């Protein structure tokens, strides 16, 4: 497209009063290489008349627009000109509302920002989607329990082809092992028959669902839209092509043999899983002598909520024990059930079931820290406990003890194996080899042929549960087009697992549909741009392949990266990582931001600070500071970036070689409670920055000149002060010695 430039300046909302518009116009015209008369200045550009002006220009062939007005976060419908490159320069929030009006400093900010905006349009192109060929929209579901079945049925009911792989001979998973289910609907009184069997039937009779039983995924190669999945069944393998994957591999009960302190190993101490089996078969009996159990004790948190075992709550065990207490009572009205709990956790309306059970005089409940289970003779047991409602120390006799066993996600064993492998590999190839030879390999689930590893990465401190943003964007994983459903994400009951699985089915559909259009999935779910590396200049340093938070880049034997663009989320981390600066997007590149930095006019007197601000959180925070009329330091120039992960170190050189005095990277919190929408972006920027500071010291530039500051979108009230503090520090350090060279 041959670019024809248009420049527009709005005088509304105080912009006209704050700035010398004539000078701004002249400077912008120079930058855009157009006549000053061609710059359109309007009192209210977002008004119908103002917009008409722009629309007429677009009709007349102007296709590259720089609009100096309000923040791009507002008036987005008004300033939308399809087919044109459009850059909004924020003269309102970042200048008119946050700077002293009519000063030389304020005018300099405006000319800098307009120039940067124009350069951005000069360096950028309209993205065109890269749509790969022979895409599949089939959805693979791994796991045929309640989550997997639900996901498969929901996707099939929208018309998608589904392949369901279950490693057991029958579908149903743990939900099929239940005698009854906890009440799921108001008034939460009656136990329900397991609903999974109707789901099994539904899945088996749905023509859109192809089921592989007694099968496992041997290998998953490729990328969303083009996954080649090899399924092994009875020793033979078959490879199918799928577009997206739902991983619903489920859970295992915690290893009860580790619960000797609760008496496990004694004949009359069983787990809640064994209890279901017994109830299904008929009577609640003591394994030791087959006599009907009359006094059944339930010990809650068997493994769960214990730092030595499972440091999380398994969510459904309280309701499960209440349900099993009902089994005891319904099967034998002489029998009593006693529940020893830390806290009874029946959140939401499940509370009504708890209340119903409390009304049964044969169900006794006490808060207790169970300290041990010992023999009481005749196969009976003493449950010993402290801090109870019945007294400080108690000992209660039971003839059967049921341990409310905790949930371990199926993802945990592979995760632990891989974590240890990574750890050991640091010691060298021999250690790695020895580990692989000596350690039994757990069942892997997806066996991804990804450079970054064979499974969905887990979060640190997530105990093997699949990665997720956890609050706002529940389904995000670091493997694009692959979503986790059910207890691999967190412990949940049958009802929640169905809701969860339905959600993943939708996400999988979005993935295949977006890929068919060549656009990204969450969070840049509109973005048609993609990283386009100039590989002839690649030095095979592997930084991009190592750093990509989504494992989107594999490499060949020589270490040359291979971008699997359907895995890419367009954060630009690869662009930031590349020391050769060969990764670019059509509308975002190292050269573009570098040129914007270089376009900042550096005065002989006074300071200039560049702020590279994450456009998702830091930039809106700066915007809000403006909306609240907070003063921003006038020596600062703000440049939004897609993610701090896209920050290339050459920008530091660009800035300092031009005499810029300081550089701030303003982005999201990282670490355990990370807030980065690309998971690792700000953390990687911090890592790279730590290296820069060494380089700066070598150049005899003070390392204080660079700082990464972690902020949240809500920190707008503190931001001006934070920036002020940095400027003060730079003033103490003094001007950049390269200034003027």
């Amino acid at each position, binding site marked *: 497209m041959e670019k024809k430039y248009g420049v527009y300046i709005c005088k509304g909302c105080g912009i006209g009063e704050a700035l010398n518009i004539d000078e701004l116009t002249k400077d912008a015209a120079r930058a855009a290489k157009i006549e000053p008369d061609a710059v359109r200045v309007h009192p209210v550009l977002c008004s119908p008349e103002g917009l008409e002006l722009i629309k007429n220009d677009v009709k007349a062939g102007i296709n590259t627009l720089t609009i100096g007005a309000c923040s791009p976060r507002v008036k987005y419908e008004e300033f939308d000109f399809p087919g044109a490159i459009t850059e909004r320069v924020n003269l309102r929030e970042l200048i008119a509302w946050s700077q002293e009006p009519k000063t030389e400093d304020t005018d300099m900010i405006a000319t800098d920002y307009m120039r940067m905006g124009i350069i951005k349009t000069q360096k950028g192109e309209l993205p065109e989607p890269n749509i790969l060929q022979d895409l599949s929209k089939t959805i693979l579901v791994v796991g045929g329990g309640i989550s997997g079945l639900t996901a498969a049925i929901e996707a099939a009911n929208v018309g998608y082809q589904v392949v369901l792989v279950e490693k057991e001979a029958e579908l149903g998973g743990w939900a099929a092992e239940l005698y009854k289910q906890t009440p799921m609907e108001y008034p939460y009184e009656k136990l329900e028959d397991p609903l999974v069997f109707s789901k099994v039937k539904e899945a088996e009779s749905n023509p859109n669902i192809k089921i592989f039983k007694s099968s496992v995924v041997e290998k998953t190669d490729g990328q969303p839209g083009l996954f080649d999945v090899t399924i092994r069944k009875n020793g033979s393998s078959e490879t199918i092509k799928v577009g997206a994957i739902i991983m619903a591999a489920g859970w295992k009960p915690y290893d009860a043999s580790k619960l000797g302190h609760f008496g496990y190993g004694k004949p009359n101490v069983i787990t809640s899983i064994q209890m279901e089996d017994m109830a299904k078969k008929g009577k609640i009996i003591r394994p030791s002598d087959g006599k009907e159990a009359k006094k059944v004790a339930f010990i809650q948190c068997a493994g769960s909520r214990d730092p030595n075992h499972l440091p999380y709550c398994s969510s459904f065990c309280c309701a499960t024990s209440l349900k099993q207490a009902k089994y005891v009572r319904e099967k034998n009205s002489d029998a009593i059930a006693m529940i020893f709990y830390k*806290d009874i956790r029946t959140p939401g309306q499940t509370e009504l079931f708890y209340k119903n059970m409390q009304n049964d005089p044969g169900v006794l409940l006490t808060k207790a820290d169970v300290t041990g289970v010992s023999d009481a003779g005749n196969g009976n047991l003493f449950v010993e406990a402290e801090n109870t409602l019945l007294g400080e120390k108690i000992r209660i006799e039971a003839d059967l003890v049921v341990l409310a066993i905790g949930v371990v996600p199926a993802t945990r064993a592979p995760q632990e194996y891989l974590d240890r492998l990574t750890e050991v590999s640091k010691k060298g190839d021999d250690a790695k080899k020895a580990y692989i030879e000596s350690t039994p390999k757990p069942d892997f689930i997806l066996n991804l042929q990804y450079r970054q590893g064979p499974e969905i990465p887990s979060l640190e401190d997530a105990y093997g549960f699949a990665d997720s943003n956890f609050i706002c964007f529940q389904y995000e994983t670091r493997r694009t087009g692959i979503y986790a459903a059910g207890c691999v994400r967190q412990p949940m009951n049958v009802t929640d697992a169905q809701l969860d699985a339905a959600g993943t*089915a939708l996400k999988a559909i*979005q993935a295949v549909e977006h890929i068919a259009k060549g656009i990204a999935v969450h969070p840049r779910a509109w973005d048609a741009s993609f990283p386009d590396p100039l590989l002839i200049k690649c030095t095979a340093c592997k930084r991009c392949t190592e750093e990509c938070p989504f494992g989107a880049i594999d490499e060949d034997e020589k270490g040359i990266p291979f971008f699997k663009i359907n895995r890419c989320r367009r954060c630009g981390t690869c662009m930031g990582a590349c020391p050769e600066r060969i990764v670019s997007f059509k509308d975002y590149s190292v050269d573009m931001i570098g040129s914007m930095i270089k376009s900042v006019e550096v005065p002989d007197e006074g300071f200039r600070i560049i702020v590279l601000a994450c456009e998702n959180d830091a930039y809106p925070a700066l915007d809000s500071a403006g909306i609240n009329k907070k003063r921003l330091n006038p020596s600062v120039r703000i440049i939004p970036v897609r993610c701090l992960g896209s920050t290339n170190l050459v920008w530091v050189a660009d800035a300092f070689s031009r005499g810029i005095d300081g550089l701030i990277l303003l982005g999201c919190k990282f670490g355990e409670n990370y807030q980065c929408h690309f998971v690792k972006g700000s953390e990687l920027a911090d890592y790279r920055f730590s290296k820069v500071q060494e380089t700066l010291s070598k150049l005899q530039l003070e390392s204080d000149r660079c700082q990464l500051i972690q902020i949240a*979108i809500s920190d707008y009230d503190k931001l001006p002060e934070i920036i002020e503090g940095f400027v003060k520090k730079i003033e103490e350090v003094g001007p950049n010695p390269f200034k003027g060279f």
Partner: protein
Amino acid sequence: MTEGKTVLVVGGGMSGLTTAVEVAEAGYKVIIAEKTPYLGGRVAQLNKYFPKLCPPNCGLEINFKRIKNNADVSFYTLAEVEKISGQEGDFDVTLKINPRYVNDKCVGCNACAEACPVEMPNEFNFGLNKTKAAYIPHNQAFPFKYAIDGKHCKGASCAKCVEACKYDAIDLNMKPETININVGAIALATGWDLYDVTKLDNLGGGKIKNVITNMQMERLASPNGSTAGKILRPSDDKEAKNIAFVQCAGSRDENHLPYCSFICCMASLKQATYLREQYPDSKAQIFYIDIRTPGRYEQFYWKVKDDPNVTLTKGKVAKITEDPSSGDVIVEAEDILAGKKIKARFDMVVLAAGMVPSTKGSKISADISYTEDGFVKPSSLKKGIYAVGTLKSPVDVAKSVQDATGVAIKSIQSARR
């Protein structure tokens, strides 16, 4: 594969927003009808989310960006559903759009609010302070557009805002509009209200100045709240450094709400961190029946519990009274595990008030059955109509999002019929 009718989402809070953007990103058209002047609902009123202690506006910003970049989503604010008829795949819906008195020319400059002489209780801040009748709900509101409160505005006789607006954006003669739409599926996501704490006589709700609700605490701690984020007690703006949290204020109580409101334990633990972070010499005491932090929230509980200045006491609060001379609040409670009664003085008390489904008070104009507590009975819903999140049972944000995404696929299935 993405052909189907439009989906209507009623409610633009976290559940509704999520349902809507998820539907749209799967390739279907969607309309949001939101009752208030802004999108974001209850979560926009929160300072931080548990357990990550991150600001809700962070996720909202992304969701708004998704809306801005997706032509398949449109929304109405100040909109109410008047009538729903028809069946799955073919519903006729009548929406009433209440007047905003501000049109699309609004630039968000605040001149109308400056000029407006009328003050009214700030509903967004749960009455903790006042706002003008020409107002924007909060400073990161979306859409970033002012509104004029019809109930409080003096109308044409005043019109100071009209004079002040340079952009011709105010129209005090605006009238309610009726819009008829045809949609294939309807997702109900009208959210929840806080339990009316004035019904909690023994706890001084609404009577003792320094007894506030958990949602008011959110507004006190929020940078865009009534005190710009300072935790100050309402009676005298003194720094509230010694705070009692009373769990199950209404919830799990046959006389009030028989169910558990799910979020209050995590919310109080979270609010204890607001306090502890703001004042190093502060103290929090949480009175509870059971601490309910299911799943991975347990880790969050441990972290807060490890702070020696946070005390957790198992026991129900019997009575709360005011010391009129100091404004302090006296809490009388039972410490069940120690087997004794406690009487203690606090700067302020936060009632962990329960969650009431919006359908308890205002029923949706469609044939739906409710539980005695006002929750929608999902099995009673007509095909093609779905309820999301807190309309079905009390849930937190994470579960609402999960449910909303699931409802999105259900809605699509119906819209394709």
